[in-house]
């Protein structure tokens, strides 16, 4: 399942060639992600109460935590989230408490500019972030496939 999902992330058309059922894997991944998020919501509500807006308020901070830690690694998500969470609360010592989320979001933007793969992001897999970069180590077909699948627009023809 893990290998199948990584194959689909890289190139969905190519992944279905050896018989991976793309839709089934994607559904399972969505369900697993939703289950984890639901668990997180329950744990959050145990200490903070339930509010109809709690998900949205956390959304950007979740993005910040995951991106900081490095997309594509589970340990990265944990590390990034701990750092973001601690930083938000500690920052209230220095900046007004209503702006504590601003600090986290600002750090997110700065991290994305300096090191877009995050703290623990895989250097090899995410070097393709720099679209203009070429490397003699990476096979060129994989590079171009990754870049094209990164666009939300369809590939021509």
């Amino acid at each position, binding site marked *: 399942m893990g290998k199948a999902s990584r194959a689909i992330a890289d190139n969905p058309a190519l992944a279905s060639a050896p018989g991976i059922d793309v839709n089934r894997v994607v559904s399972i991944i969505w369900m697993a992600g939703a289950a984890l998020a639901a668990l997180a919501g329950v744990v959050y509500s145990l200490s903070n109460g339930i509010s109809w807006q709690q998900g949205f308020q956390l959304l950007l901070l979740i*993005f910040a935590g995951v991106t900081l830690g490095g997309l594509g690694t589970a340990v990265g998500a944990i590390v990034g989230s701990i750092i973001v969470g601690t930083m938000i609360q500690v920052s209230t010592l220095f900046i*007004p408490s*209503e*702006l504590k989320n601003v600090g986290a979001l600002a750090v997110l933007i700065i991290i994305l500019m300096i090191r*877009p793969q995050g703290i623990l992001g895989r250097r090899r897999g995410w070097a393709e972030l720099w*679209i*203009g970069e070429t490397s003699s180590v990476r096979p060129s077909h994989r590079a171009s496939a990754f870049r094209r699948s990164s666009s939300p627009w369809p*590939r021509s023809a």
Partner: protein
Amino acid sequence: MDWGNVFSQAITQGIGIQAVIFALAAIGLNVQFGYTGLLNFGQSGFLAVAAYGLGVSIAMMGWSLWVGLLVGIAAAVVLALLLGAPTLRLRADYLAIVTIAAAEILRLVFRSVTFNPVFGGSDGINRFADDFYALNPFNAGVKIGPVDFSENDMWIVTIGWILVVVMSVLVFLMMRSPWGRVIKAIREDEDAVRSLGKSVYAYKLQALTIGGVMGCFGGFVAAIALQSVQPDYYGTDLTFFAYAVLILGGAARVLGPIVGSVVFWFGLVLIDSALSNAVSSGAITFIQSTQVGQIRYWILGISLMLLMIYRPQGILGDKKELSLDAR
């Protein structure tokens, strides 16, 4: 059930202030997302800096309306450059995350108590549009058939639609030009454009800036029409509504944002008035009148989901030119 009133309200709002604001925001998004393929989820940030630029210049600094407009446009350009310069070299998702974070930062800063003397906190800035309404040539409200506007509303709606037409003509001319061809090519296949020697980064930055400036006029109309600039109006809801308007009308089409905005607001106000009317006249008994606002958004959300699944190109779109990968 007073259907006449329901429809007249819906038609009035369908071509009214909100429709104009979202048409302008969607035209800007059209240039960025529809034609260039940039995922800008911070369009509300552009509208916010423009509106606050205008409001702060007039209310705090005491400058004239025209200087305020220039300040707002300059703020939108600076925001576009700040957002685009570092992130346009990265994958599309990164621009999305950075723009949504930037828009939220702007909203929180504008809302904060710390900056209350400058930005007015959560109350915002009020009473700065008098210069504009002093130029109003309409002496009385306008009532033509089902449409009913007060004289101030009529003035800003007229100016707003003139702006929409001017922007649409500009977009049409831009996209027919060689520059527009490169932009559309970037959307389809960046590597091919790069192989022809064009600087994709420069074109994307230009598209982001132009889209941002067009969208910021929506912020001006919002500030002047509502006669106040409030931070909570410029949240992520506004961005998502602008996307809904754009996709409904058809991205990458000149008339898409206009059609989408009119249909969207007509539909929203129709559902709202019909439900409120039905509840207050007793035709529907299982809903209270305070729940109508939320139910309207349910229906809106479900309609948008159905739209994305069954007709992602929207009303005017071309299926070959746009197909959002729904995954």
